[in-house]
């Protein structure tokens, strides 16, 4: 009997085949629908297989070794709970994105630069999740980066995109090298690169610490942890929107998978301080990410930054899980870990949805700059509705899914008093505060995103000819919106679905949720805390419609259209509306000082001069200026200095040889 992994591997294989085919036919008109259709079908098929597997025996592990890749290790692939879950995330995202691409791809100006790499990208992510030895893992990992790089370079005539692609790939290979070192440590001098072997070998404390640090560098740079995030807000928006959705919604999750796989699975029992490190990094990442997002006026960049925030949340709760696991508090660890995975799933939903929305706006108006948008809700009702759903979900508002997972995170944080170490006792609530701050700021950020883009009046002419986008795109977005709602009101099912994963990695899982009365979720005990999204949803709908009905029925339902009141001010030009920048101004005033050394200067014209006064705002990316600029400066200096060696005379070159010889001989003379 062929193991299920073999079936699953057919997916990526087929995707690669599609990629090659696409490279051949990419200049035909029919290529777009062909490629995306194929990708859709394959993703759905893989989903079906995984679903069948989970429905049948979720705990069961099946592995296979192909005679490929690294000789004497072979290409090993393995399906366990964790990879099954991430397979679902990847292929769900892949399927929806392909559906979206069926419509969106038609507007692509250079399809031959997108179509071949899109399936390859999907295949890469699938393989990463299935890989079971260091070599295949890294190969798929870097292949994934490479394919996405090609997609980022799709619109290569734009200088900014080229720069984004460059920084992206350099950071990516930096991450890969870090992972390579980590695996080198785990494999040991004998070079046992199979994960199974690493799992059994329990490294010492120092090694474990080094591996953790390297994983934070490697997986973190891909996921976008501060300060390794610099490439992310450049690269994600540069790609075509559906690819941005994949990169932001799915690829970052693959990075999270890598982190979990190594730190929770291969590394064995963690030390408590590892939890501290991950927690702090997560918290800082969350706050800084969302603050940057608030300062953005480019819609896609805003979304990219908010991805950084969500990654921060995920890593923070992973850190919690580590801390609890280290202190033998399996139930709390299971709670935190479940929260992390749940948030992974949710973020893949709403972030893809939001990027799709941004893509729709881009197709309709050709604009990403929110300052030129506004009032789209009248022209694109459906898009704006689903986008709103996305915003509500990502802002962690009940009864949508974002809230469910954040609620679980907070519940996990509330377990901290049982932790023995003082450091953790103090840090965990502080991080909790950071996460709360991040959540509140996220709400603010997406009020801005939706309000400036879709509400108000049109800020430029491009909005005038905006049309609702094509059906496939709308369908994709609608599907995701439904997912967001369902995961929000029926979280119990998701949590129970995750229990095998937690069971395998933590050793315990959360209590069964779907058995609870009224389908509410109860992490520990009902007396402690509980949440019932379904009922909240029902109550709100009932009472809202009830109120509406009562008033319309018994009071008045008269309605008259008139000019806006605006405290009696005459109807001002649309430019007088609040803009993205001005909307963020109060928050910039509050946090800008320390977060990005923001400075506002007012340029007053000379007395009597006619030009208007100007308010100049300059914002600095502290991480960029603290880490990246010095490095590039140093490289610049070094190259400048060494470059002189290209311009010596032959005699001087001979002198070099001569000196080298003499030095070596001296060494030899002094050799004991």
């Amino acid at each position, binding site marked *: 009997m062929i193991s299920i992994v073999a079936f699953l591997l057919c997916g990526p294989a087929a995707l690669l085949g599609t990629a090659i085919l696409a490279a051949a036919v990419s200049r035909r008109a029919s290529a777009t629908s062909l490629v995306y259709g194929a990708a859709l079908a394959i993703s759905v098929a893989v989903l079906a297989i995984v679903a069948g597997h989970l429905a049948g025996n979720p705990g069961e592990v099946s592995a296979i070794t192909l005679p490929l890749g690294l000789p004497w290790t072979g290409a090993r692939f393995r399906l366990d709970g964790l990879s099954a879950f991430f397979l679902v995330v990847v292929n769900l995202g892949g399927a929806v994105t392909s559906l979206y691409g069926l419509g969106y791809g038609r507007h692509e100006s250079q399809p031959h630069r997108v179509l071949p790499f899109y399936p390859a990208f999907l295949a890469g992510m699938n393989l990463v999740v299935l890989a079971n030895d260091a070599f295949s893992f890294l190969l798929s990992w870097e292949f994934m980066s490479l394919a996405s790089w090609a997609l980022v370079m799709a619109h290569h005539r734009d200088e900014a995109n080229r720069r984004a692609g460059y920084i992206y790939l350099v950071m990516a290979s930096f991450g890969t090298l870090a992972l390579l070192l980590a695996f080198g440590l785990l494999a040991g001098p004998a070079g046992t690169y199979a994960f199974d072997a690493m799992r059994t070998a329990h490294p010492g404390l120092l090694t474990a610490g080094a591996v953790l640090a390297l994983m934070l560098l490697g997986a973190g740079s891909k996921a976008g942890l501060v300060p390794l995030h610099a490439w992310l807000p450049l690269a994600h928006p540069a790609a075509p929107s559906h690819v941005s959705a994949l990169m932001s919604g799915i690829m970052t999750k693959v990075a999270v998978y890598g982190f979990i796989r190594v730190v929770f699975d291969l590394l064995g029992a963690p030390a408590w301080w590892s939890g501290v490190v991950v927690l702090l990094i997560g918290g800082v990442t969350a706050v800084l990410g969302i603050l940057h997002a608030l300062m953005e006026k480019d819609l896609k960049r805003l979304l990219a930054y908010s991805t950084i925030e969500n990654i921060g949340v995920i890593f923070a709760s992973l850190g919690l899980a580590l801390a609890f696991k280290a202190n033998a508090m399996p139930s709390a660890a299971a709670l935190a870990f479940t929260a992390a995975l749940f948030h992974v799933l949710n973020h893949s939903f709403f972030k893809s949805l939001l990027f799709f929305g941004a893509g729709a706006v881009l197709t309709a108006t050709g604009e990403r700059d929110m300052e030129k948008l506004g009032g789209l809700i009248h022209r694109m009702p459906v898009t704006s509705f689903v986008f709103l759903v996305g915003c509500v979900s990502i802002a962690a508002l009940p009864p949508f899914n974002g809230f469910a997972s954040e609620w679980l995170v907070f519940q996990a944080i509330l377990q901290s008093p049982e932790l023995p170490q003082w450091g953790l006792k103090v840090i965990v609530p502080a991080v909790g505060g950071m996460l709360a*701050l991040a959540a509140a700021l996220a709400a603010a950020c997406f009020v801005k995103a939706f*309000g400036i883009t879709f509400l108000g009046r049109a800020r430029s002419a491009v909005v005038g000819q905006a049309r609702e986008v094509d059906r496939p795109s709308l369908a994709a977005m609608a599907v995701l919106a439904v997912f967001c709602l369902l995961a929000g009101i029926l979280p119990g099912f998701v949590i129970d679905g995750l229990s095998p994963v937690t069971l395998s990695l933590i050793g315990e899982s959360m209590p069964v949720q779907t058995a609870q009365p009224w389908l509410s979720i109860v992490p520990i005990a009902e007396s402690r805390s509980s949440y*019932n999204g379904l009922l909240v949803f029902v109550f709100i709908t009932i*009472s809202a419609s009830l109120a509406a009905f009562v008033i319309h029925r018994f009071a008045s339902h008269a309605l008259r259209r008139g000019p806006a009141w605006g405290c009696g001010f005459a109807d001002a030009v649309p430019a007088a509306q609040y803009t993205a920048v001005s909307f963020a101004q109060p928050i910039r005033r509050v946090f800008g000082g320390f977060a990005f050394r923001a400075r506002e200067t007012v340029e007053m014209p000379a007395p009597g001069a006619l030009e208007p006064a100007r308010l100049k705002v300059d914002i600095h990316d502290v991480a960029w200026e603290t880490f990246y600029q010095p490095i590039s400066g140093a490289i610049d200096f070094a190259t400048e200095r060494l470059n002189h060696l290209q311009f010596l005379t032959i005699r001087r070159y001979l002198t070099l040889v001569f000196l080298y010889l003499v030095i070596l001989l001296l060494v030899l003379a002094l050799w004991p």
Partner: protein
Amino acid sequence: MAVIFELAVQGAQMLLVLLLAPLLIGFVRKVKARLVRRQGPSLIQPYRDLARLMRKEVVLADNASWLFRVTPYLIFAATWVAAALVPTFAAGLQFSWTADLIVIVALLGSARFFQALAGMDVGTSFGGIGASREVMIASLAEPAMLLIVFSLALVAGATQLSTVAAFMGSPEVGLRVSLGMSLIALVMVAIAENARIPVDNPATHLELTMVHEAMILEYSGRHLAMIELATFLKLLLYVSLISCVFLPWGLAHAGAGPKALAIGAAAYLVKLAVLAILLAVFETAVAKMRVFRVPDFLGAALMLALLGTLLLFVSRSL
């Protein structure tokens, strides 16, 4: 049978908050008026206002979208559900486990979210001002609130309000510094959230420092009524939150009989009255502060809450 009774009690609570909310506002206004030696409107004036607004026709800005028209009902519904889930006269009601304190905070958050959006919908500069300032205030108030929740939960070992209330009612609580800090922080947050003086002035229009009123400037008729009602409910919610957490005396408990419930109701009314008077006195005593002083105000609340949480670790007895 018992279930029916429980449901009845729950329903009673929902209606109660709905009916009491305008009265509370009226009472506060009355007291404030008396404090400055004015006659002031009658206690039921808010009811009259609401009824009048509901009968009036709605004047809708040309640019207003469907969101603008749906929002009032959403805000009302969210606030009402939240308010109905806070124990007023009795804890541990039928649906109390639907949502714990965090969820209640989040429900208010979603109400605010939609209100801010509605403020931006018409596209006047006032709406923008209101929305941007509101989210700024919220971005500080919500973390503070959550930290308060943390410290309560760490003391009571739960975020379930009924449990917290029961615990706070029980003798082993004693007097704790951290709880005091949380109380102060909670009051500050409540003031900010309800747009009361000194953070915002509910009684003014056309003042560039206004926040809440600026967002609802374009509303009229039944929509305005809904929003006003939601505002009243919010105030009631916070008052009853404070009362049930910090003055849990007389609170009837799960499965209690009619007598206990009656006592609870009476106690609840008394608490409301006391807190309302305190609020009125406070508001008359202090002056409105500049908008950009508000972050400092809330920052103080945040720090207090965090401090309260951390103190819990330093010593269990504090």
